[in-house]
C-alpha cells in the first residue's frame, strides 16, 4: 500500500471518493444549518456512524470473502441479541458478562450455520442468510415472549450515552473496532487469506489456503460482530423490539459498498466501510435537519444514495 502511494502520489489518495463525499455533505450541512458542525451534532453523527460501522464489520468480512458473499442475517441477529441482552441481563450489571458471552457465542453459532450453508451445502449466501434470518426472527419472537425485555442496567446504559474523556463510548468502541479490524485484515494470516479467497477461491485452494476454514470463520465472525452490534444498538436506545435490527441489514451492505469494498469480493478495507457508515449517517442527519416530511425525505434519501453510489462504487466496465 505505501509503496503504491509512492509510485502514484496524487492519483492514489486512498478513499478519495468517500472523503470528497464527506466533505461535500459537511459543507452542505453547514449551509443548511450552521450548527451542523457543532461538536454536539458531530458526536451524535459519529455515534450513529460507529454503531453502523460495527454492524458493518462482519458484513465487510463476508463481502470481502467474495463468491457472492453477503449476509442478510445481520439485522435479525442484532434484533435477537438486543432482545436477549435486555431479557437476560436485566437491570443490573452482574449478569452482563455472562449475557455477553452467551449472545456473542450465539451470534457466532448463527454465523457458523450460515457458513455451513454456504460452504458445505454450496447454497448462495444471499439465499442461506435470508432463510436463516427468517428463522432468527421467529426465534426472537419466541424468546421475547418467554423473556420480555427489561430496562438496561448502568453499564449498558453508559454504552449508549456515556462518554470517555469527553468522547462518546460508542465512538470509542467504533475506533477500537476500526483499529482491530484493520490489524485483522492487514496483518493476520486470516486477513490475508480472506483477500485471497475473495479474489479467487479456486486459486486460493490451489495455493493451499484452508478455504473452508476461512469461509466458516468469516461467516461466524460476521454473526459474532452482528451480535456485538446488537449489544451496542441496545445500549444506543435502551429498549428493544422485534424489528429493531431489521434496517441494519441493507444499511450495512450499503455502507460497505459505498466504502469501496467490491461486492465481487477480494478488495476493500474496513476504513472504507467506516467512511461509508459516516456518509450514510451524515445523509440521514442532513435530511432530518432539512425538516422534510416523510415522503420527500424518503425520495431525497433515495436520490442521494444513487448519487453516492454513482460517485463511489460503479461496477467496472
Amino acid at each position, binding site marked *: *500500500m505505501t*509503496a*503504491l502511494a509512492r*509510485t502514484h502520489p496524487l492519483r492514489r489518495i486512498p478513499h478519495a471518493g468517500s472523503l470528497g463525499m464527506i466533505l461535500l455533505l459537511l459543507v452542505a450541512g453547514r449551509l443548511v444549518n450552521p450548527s451542523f458542525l457543532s461538536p454536539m451534532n458531530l458526536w451524535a453523527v459519529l455515534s450513529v456512524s460507529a454503531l453502523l460501522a460495527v454492524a458493518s464489520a462482519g458484513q465487510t468480512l463476508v463481502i470481502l470473502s467474495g463468491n457472492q458473499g453477503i449476509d442478510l442475517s445481520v439485522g435479525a441477529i442484532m434484533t435477537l441479541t438486543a432482545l436477549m441482552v435486555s431479557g437476560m441481563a436485566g437491570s443490573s450489571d452482574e449478569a452482563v458478562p455472562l449475557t455477553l458471552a452467551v449472545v456473542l457465542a450465539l451470534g457466532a453459532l448463527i454465523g457458523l450455520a450460515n457458513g455451513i450453508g454456504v460452504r458445505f451445502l454450496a447454497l448462495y449466501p444471499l439465499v442461506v442468510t435470508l432463510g436463516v434470518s427468517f428463522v432468527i426472527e421467529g426465534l426472537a419472537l419466541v424468546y421475547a415472549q418467554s423473556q420480555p425485555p427489561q430496562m438496561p442496567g448502568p453499564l449498558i446504559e453508559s454504552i449508549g450515552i456515556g462518554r470517555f474523556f469527553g468522547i462518546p463510548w460508542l465512538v470509542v468502541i467504533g475506533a477500537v473496532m476500526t483499529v482491530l479490524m484493520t490489524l485483522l485484515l492487514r496483518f493476520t*494470516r486470516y486477513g*490475508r*487469506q480472506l*483477500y*485471497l479467497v475473495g*479474489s*479467487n477461491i*479456486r*486459486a*486460493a*485452494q*490451489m*495455493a*493451499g*489456503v*484452508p*478455504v473452508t*476454514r476461512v469461509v466458516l470463520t468469516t461467516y461466524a465472525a460476521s454473526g459474532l460482530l452482528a451480535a456485538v452490534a446488537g449489544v451496542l444498538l441496545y445500549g444506543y436506545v435502551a429498549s428493544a423490539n422485534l424489528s429493531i435490527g431489521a434496517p441494519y441489514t441493507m444499511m450495512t451492505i450499503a455502507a460497505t459498498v459505498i466504502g469501496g469494498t*467490491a461486492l465481487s469480493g*477480494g*478488495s476493500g478495507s474496513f476504513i472504507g466501510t467506516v467512511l461509508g457508515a459516516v456518509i450514510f449517517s451524515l445523509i440521514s442527519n442532513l435530511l432530518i435537519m432539512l425538516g422534510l416530511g416523510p415522503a420527500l425525505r424518503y425520495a431525497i434519501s433515495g436520490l442521494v444514495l444513487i448519487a453516492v453510489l454513482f460517485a463511489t462504487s460503479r461496477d467496472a466496465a
Partner: protein
Amino acid sequence: MTLVLQGISRDFGPVRALDDVSLAIGPGECRALYGGNGSGKSTMAKIASGILSAGAGRVLVDDRPLARTSPAEARALGVGITFQELSLIGELTTGENLVLADVPRRFGFLLDRRGADAAAHAALKRVGLAGLRGRRVELLQTGEKYLVELAKALQSHPRYLIIDELTSAMHASEVEIFAGLLAEHLAAGGGALFVSHRLPELRRFCNTISVLRNGKLVFEGALADVADDDLVKWAGGGHRDEMPASRAPLAGEIRVQATGLRPLPGARPINLAFRSGEITGIGGLPDQGQKHIQRLLAGLQPAVAGERVTLSGAALALGDSAAIAAQGISFVSGDRDEMVFARRTIRENMQAPFVAMKGRPMPDDAAILAALDRLNTRHAGIDRPIGGLSGGNQQKILVARCLLLNPQVIVAEDCTKGIDVASRNDVHHLLRELAHVQGAAVIVTSSDDQELAGLCDRVLVLDGGQVIAELSKVEQTLDAQAIVSAYMKQERAA
C-alpha cells in the same frame, strides 16, 4: 477488399500495449500474428473485432470504418473472431450459442425455434458436431468446445476470420477439421488473422506474417522469407529451445507412490510412482485421466474409493489441498482463471502459499524480485495488480512462486499454455533446476507433445485411464513422435 488496421495504438494505464501498428489482410490471405507474451497480439485481435477500443488509429473493413467499440458492429461488417477463452455460454445449449448473435425470429420478437435449430444444425455440421446442438456447452469436452467456437465464428459468414490461439487446446484430429474449414474460407476469398505461438502451425496455415515486439511492428512480409530463429529472436527470447541434453536424472528415491488410482470413472485401478530429481510427463489424448491424477496429487479432487498416495512414505490427506500443500506439494496450472488473484498485487500472488501455510518464513521483496528475474518476468512493480500483466507474464509469476517454495513435488498442469517460446524456455530451465538440482519430483502435462518430449525425463502415455506406454529419455525411447504414435495406435485400434 481488405481488412485494414491502420496506425493502431492502445494504452492500458501506463502500459503501451500497441504502438502505431498497421496491418492488412486481403482476400485469400492468412496472416500470422506473432510475438512474445505481452507483445499485443490479443489486443490487436480484440481491436479488430470491436471488443476493445483503439486509442489511436482506425479499423477499416472493406473500406467501411468500424466506428464504435462493438463486437456486434464488427460482426455486421464481416469480422468473425474465435477467443482463446471462448465466447460460449456454458448454461446455454450449443445450438442456442450458435444463433445468439442473430436470433431467427417470427413476428419480429418470437424465437423461431425451427429456424434456429436449422441454422445451428447447418453450422455445427461443418465441424461434425451437429448431433450435439441440444447439449449444454458446459457438458462438452474441451476440444469440442473449441470446434463449436469456430463454428460460431463462421456462422455469420465473416469475410475476415480472427483466430486467437484456437488450436492450442485442440487434438490433432480436431486441428484437421479446422484446417479444412480454414482452407475453405480462404478459397472462398476470405481473409484470416491467425494468432499462435506454435511455429509449425503458423507455417502450415499462413502465407504472410506480422511480428510484434513490445507493442511495435517489427516485421511484416511473407512467412517464407523468415527463418524460425529470427521469429524466436523477435519474439523476445535469445535463442531457440535447443533442448539441452539434460543431465542424467539423479537416481532419486521414490518420492510419490500412488496406488489404486482410477483416473477415469470405471477404469481399472493403476499404480504410479514418481522419483525425486525426475521430470515425469503424462501424455495422451485429452481427457484420458491426466487431470484426475494431477488434481488428486494436489488435493484438489476427492479420492475415489481405494486410492492412496504416499509422499516419502507418509500418507497424503487426499482431497485436502491445504494439508497437501503444507506437506510440500505445489500445484501450478496453465489455467490462469483458477490460479491468479487478479485483483491482488504481484507480491501477494507470490506470497499466497506462504500466507496459506504456517511455519514458512514469508519471502521478502528481494527474494520475490530475484525469483521474478530468474524468469525474465516483465512487470511494472510488484505492488501492481497482477491482472494487468499479459497472460504469459502472469504464468511466469506462478512458476516463479514455486521457486520460492522449493517444494518436494511440483505438479504442473499445462503450465506453459500460451506463453512464448522464450518464456517457455525460462520455465523449462527452472523446472529442470528444481528437479535435477534441488531434487524435486516434477509431474507435468502439456497440450504440446513436442514440449513433453523435450522437457521430460520420462513420459507416461495414458489412454482410457491406463498407462499404455512408458517412454524414457535415458533409454532413448522418448520423442514427440513416439508419444503420438503411442496414443494414435491405440485410437486406430479402437
